[in-house]
């Protein structure tokens, strides 16, 4: 405003540049019309009658403050950033013109002084209070500059500043003196114009590069921040501080001092009047030189005479703090700026109100250090507005949130559910919001430590981010990429969390290839079928192929090839996952696709692909989940297929001592897995939902299509047969109790049993694996895996667990007639006595200290044996077989 020497042709600006726009607008408007007389405007300071709006003065400036008190208005660095450069330019221009016509810097000084005081008074202006900042630091700078006592700046810095100023000279077109004040450190980075004229001798702590860089940041920050605080005044008010530094020039200082002193003598009420007057002064541009001179004169007078006269403590203080005096003005900026930025800076508020004290060397140094730190912290503060920050936050969040956590965050979600036992405690969004807040080091709740508010805010951010994430795929990728690239780092909507960058690009033609090969095979197989293979001959072929199935690759190739089978397994998994997802979301599940993917009734291959699926661990593991979705009919079909082609089953082959006399550890593990997974399913299905005839059907399928004696050489095979016949026997007993078993059922049972028995007759002894084999299994499994061998108390005493064999024989004998039992006993007589002998020998051969273990083993052997013998009313005890009583 007035202190700058205003361009009268632009009243609007003049008006605005006032510190208190509310006030100035009115008074300014009024006065703008009259030519300005310095005598009126200045010298009679405080003598005016109250004017129209003067009743507002107290409110505006406060009235509780001691006159002449010095305040620290904070460190005005960033305000400059915040203050629109546009305004600055404008102001600057007017200033420049004023300067051109004005005398030496003195004039500027004069203008300054008034407002400064006004501001001092205004210290009580509570809303701003919190925004003032580090006076001491500023002060130190100031002091430094003025007195040249402390070399706060390095030579390089000085040079750089001077250089900058020099450069800007031309730009501003102004005589240096006019700008004297501008060199003030905090504002150093104000637009070049400000510095341009450069008060060259002032070594200021001009942040490097700021003059150029700043303007860019401005436009954004300003518009948003402004509304918060001082509605109109800010943009114009901003520049005001700039001239402040003038005092450094020397004379101005004095003037200021005196001015302060003078003010003290006036009634407080008069002080507020000053600001309004200022515009007038400025408007009288032509006069300004004069004014300046007068100014200069009056200060000196004052300095000479008044201070001593004033003599009161306050003025003394003021005098003492002569150097700092300019400070307040610079810092006047701070409030504006702070408002604009919305940055809480309350922390340093405490220092603001204290009158300045001279600083000791130590203090000064400390302050310098502190100032350096503050500089560092504040350098980029306010570059982004809260809205900018929100935007960034949202963008970052949108990369990690999802509206579909179950699909996109599957592992985490399910894992947590499993861990917590099915209880989902907090919403996904809440979790993310909290994590993000903690993670990002946001000061929780900001100035008021309102963590809950911050959390809410962040949650709403997450909400928005989810929306962004939802919209993401729909947006035009190219546009989005182009717009944000480089601003927020590399952002690619094509490469978001859903579709991360892939190191390996796998061509997706594979599916086509498979189609080709499989269809080719199908063609061949179908022609073969048409030519020769009737259903029965096919079945025959299958059983006769049993031993060729030892080569697993052959089996796989006959069911479509390893690759095909593996892809089938994946298809099955995909279907199951799909169905499970549907189940979770409460939809109806349709297992027809799953059924198709199992290829159970697929006759295109010699060996059903389903059997080959069971050759792989992952194929076995998925079975329980498949069974969840199949209906009874499908399960039955599946098992029918399974039992029909049992000979081809890889696990039968590897668990048979005939085809695999040297089982490896991993094979034994597979066996274990199959037993614990698939056998379990069969047992539970048979015992829960299978009808008698269905069990018979499965048994028939097994007997008819397979080499039963081969299957019986494998542990799994024997287990399966045992399961079937024992289940059938159980149902028969149950049913016979109720006398419901029809003659058809009974006769078909007898028929099937006869078939089975015929297949096994004369080969019953082979169900017992040879000693070498059992020894090997024990040996292999003793390396730590749990297998078919029963582990005794110590590794040394492991032995092959034959209980499954005795179970089989027992169930066989149970369902057979007397002559069947006789045949069985005849065939395995050696084994029975062999077992008894082994049991007895155990006791006699082992050393005394291992009697316990031997005793256990002996009991176990008898127990297993008696499982079978008991069926026929016999019992083996202490080396002898007797009738069970």
């Amino acid at each position, binding site marked *: 405003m007035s202190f700058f020497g205003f361009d009268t042709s632009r009243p609007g600006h003049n008006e605005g540049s006032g510190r208190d726009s509310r006030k100035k607008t009115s008074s300014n408007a009024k006065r703008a019309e009259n030519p300005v007389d310095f005598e009126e405007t200045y010298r009679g300071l405080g003598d005016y009658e109250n004017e129209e709006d003067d009743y507002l003065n107290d409110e505006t400036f406060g009235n509780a403050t001691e006159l002449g008190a010095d305040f620290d208005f904070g460190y005005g660095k960033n305000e400059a950033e915040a203050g629109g450069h546009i305004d600055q330019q404008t102001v600057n221009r007017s200033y420049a013109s004023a300067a051109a016509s004005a005398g030496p810097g003195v004039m500027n000084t004069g203008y300054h002084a008034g407002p400064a005081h006004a501001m001092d008074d205004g210290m009580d202006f509570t809303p701003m209070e919190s925004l003032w900042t580090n006076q001491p630091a500023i002060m130190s700078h100031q002091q430094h500059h003025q007195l040249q006592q402390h070399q706060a700046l390095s030579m390089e810095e000085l040079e750089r500043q001077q250089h900058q100023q020099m450069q800007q000279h031309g730009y501003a077109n102004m005589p240096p003196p006019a700008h004297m004040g501008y060199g003030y450190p905090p504002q150093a980075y104000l637009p070049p114009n400000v510095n341009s004229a450069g008060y060259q001798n002032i070594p200021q702590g001009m942040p490097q590069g700021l003059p150029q860089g700043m303007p860019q940041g401005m436009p954004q920050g300003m518009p948003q921040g402004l509304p918060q605080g001082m509605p109109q005044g800010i943009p114009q008010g901003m520049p005001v501080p700039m001239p402040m530094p003038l005092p450094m020039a020397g004379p101005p200082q004095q003037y200021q001092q005196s001015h302060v002193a003078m003010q003290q003598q006036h009634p407080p009420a008069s002080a507020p009047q000053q600001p309004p007057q200022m515009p007038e002064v400025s408007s009288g541009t032509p006069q300004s030189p004069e004014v300046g001179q007068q100014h200069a004169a009056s200060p000196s007078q004052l300095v000479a005479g008044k201070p001593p006269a004033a003599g009161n403590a306050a003025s003394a203080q003021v005098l003492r703090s002569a150097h700092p005096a300019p400070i307040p003005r610079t810092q006047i900026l701070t409030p504006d700026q702070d408002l604009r930025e919305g940055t809480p800076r309350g922390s340093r508020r405490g220092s603001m109100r204290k009158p300045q004290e001279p600083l000791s060397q130590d203090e000064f140094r400390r302050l310098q250090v502190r100032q350096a730190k503050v500089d560092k912290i504040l350098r980029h503060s306010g570059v982004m507005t809260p809205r900018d920050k929100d935007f960034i936050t949202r963008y970052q969040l949108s990369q990690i949130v999802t509206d579909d956590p179950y*699909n996109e*965050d599957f*592992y*985490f979600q399910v894992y*947590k559910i*499993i861990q917590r036992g099915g209880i989902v405690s907090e919403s996904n969004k809440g979790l993310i919001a909290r994590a993000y807040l903690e*993670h990002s080091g946001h000061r929780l709740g900001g100035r008021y430590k309102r963590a809950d508010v911050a959390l809410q805010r962040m949650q709403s951010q997450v909400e928005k981010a989810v929306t962004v994430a939802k919209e993401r795929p729909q947006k035009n990728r190219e546009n989005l990429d182009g717009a944000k690239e480089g601003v927020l780092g590399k952002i690619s909507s094509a490469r978001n969390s859903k579709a991360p960058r892939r190191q390996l690009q796998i061509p997706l033609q594979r599916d086509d290839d498979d189609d080709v090969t499989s269809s080719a095979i199908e063609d061949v197989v179908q022609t073969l079928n048409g030519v020769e293979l009737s259903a029965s001959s096919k079945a025959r072929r299958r059983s006769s192929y049993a031993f060729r199935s030892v080569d697993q690759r052959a089996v796989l190739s006959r069911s479509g090839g390893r690759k095909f089978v593996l892809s089938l397994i994946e298809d099955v998994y995909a279907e199951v*996952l799909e169905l499970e997802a549907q189940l979770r979301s409460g939809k109806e599940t349709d297992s027809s696709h799953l059924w198709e993917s199992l290829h159970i009734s697929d006759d295109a291959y010699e060996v059903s692909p389903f059997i080959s699926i069971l050759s792989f661990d992952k194929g076995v593991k998925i079975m329980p989940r498949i069974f969840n979705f199949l209906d009874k009919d499908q399960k039955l079909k599946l098992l029918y297929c399974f039992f029909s082609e049992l000979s081809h089953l890889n696990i039968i082959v590897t668990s048979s001592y005939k085809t695999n006399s040297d089982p490896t550890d991993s094979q034994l593990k597979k066996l274990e897995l199959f037993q614990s997974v698939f056998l379990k399913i069969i047992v539970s299905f048979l015992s829960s939902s299978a009808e008698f005839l269905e069990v018979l059907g499965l048994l028939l399928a097994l007997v008819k299509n397979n080499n039963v004696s081969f299957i019986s050489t494998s542990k799994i095979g024997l287990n399966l047969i045992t399961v079937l016949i024992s289940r059938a026997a159980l149902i028969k007993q149950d049913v016979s109790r109720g006398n419901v078993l029809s003659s058809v059922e009974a006769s078909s049972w007898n028929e099937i049993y006869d078939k089975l028995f015929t297949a096994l007759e004369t080969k019953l002894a082979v169900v017992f694996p040879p000693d070498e084999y059992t020894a090997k299994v024990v040996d292999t499994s003793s390396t730590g895996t749990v297998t078919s061998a029963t582990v005794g108390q110590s590794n040394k005493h492991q032995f092959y667990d034959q209980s499954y064999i005795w179970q089989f024989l027992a169930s066989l004998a149970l369902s057979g007639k007397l002559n069947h039992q006789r045949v069985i006993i005849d065939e395995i007589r050696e084994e029975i006595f062999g077992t008894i002998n082994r049991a007895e020998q155990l006791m006699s051969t082992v050393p005394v200290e291992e009697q316990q273990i031997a005793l256990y083993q002996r009991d176990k052997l008898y127990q297993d044996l008696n499982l079978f013998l008991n069926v026929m009313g016999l019992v083996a005890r202490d080396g002898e077989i007797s009738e069970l009583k």
Partner: protein
Amino acid sequence: MLFFSFFKTLVDQEVTVELKNDIELKGTLKSVDQFLNLKLDNISCSDETKYPHLSSVRNIFIRGSTVRYVYLNKNMVDTNLLQDAARREAMSSRK
């Protein structure tokens, strides 16, 4: 998203991170983001003599791209679930 999802379940567990410059750090995983940047707390370096400067560091932020391995305790991983998750991921990308 799978790895992000996976590592999220390891938060607050102790892991050992081997960096591409051979430094091995053991610490409690505090957080992970979509770049698999890691934040470790209470770290200890497996080779204190070679990297003495790390002995004074309590917590550390590791850029995801510098990680070579993360060693886990076997029981921190639900392999079956992980297989399912991987399959789902593959399925969704195929669609």
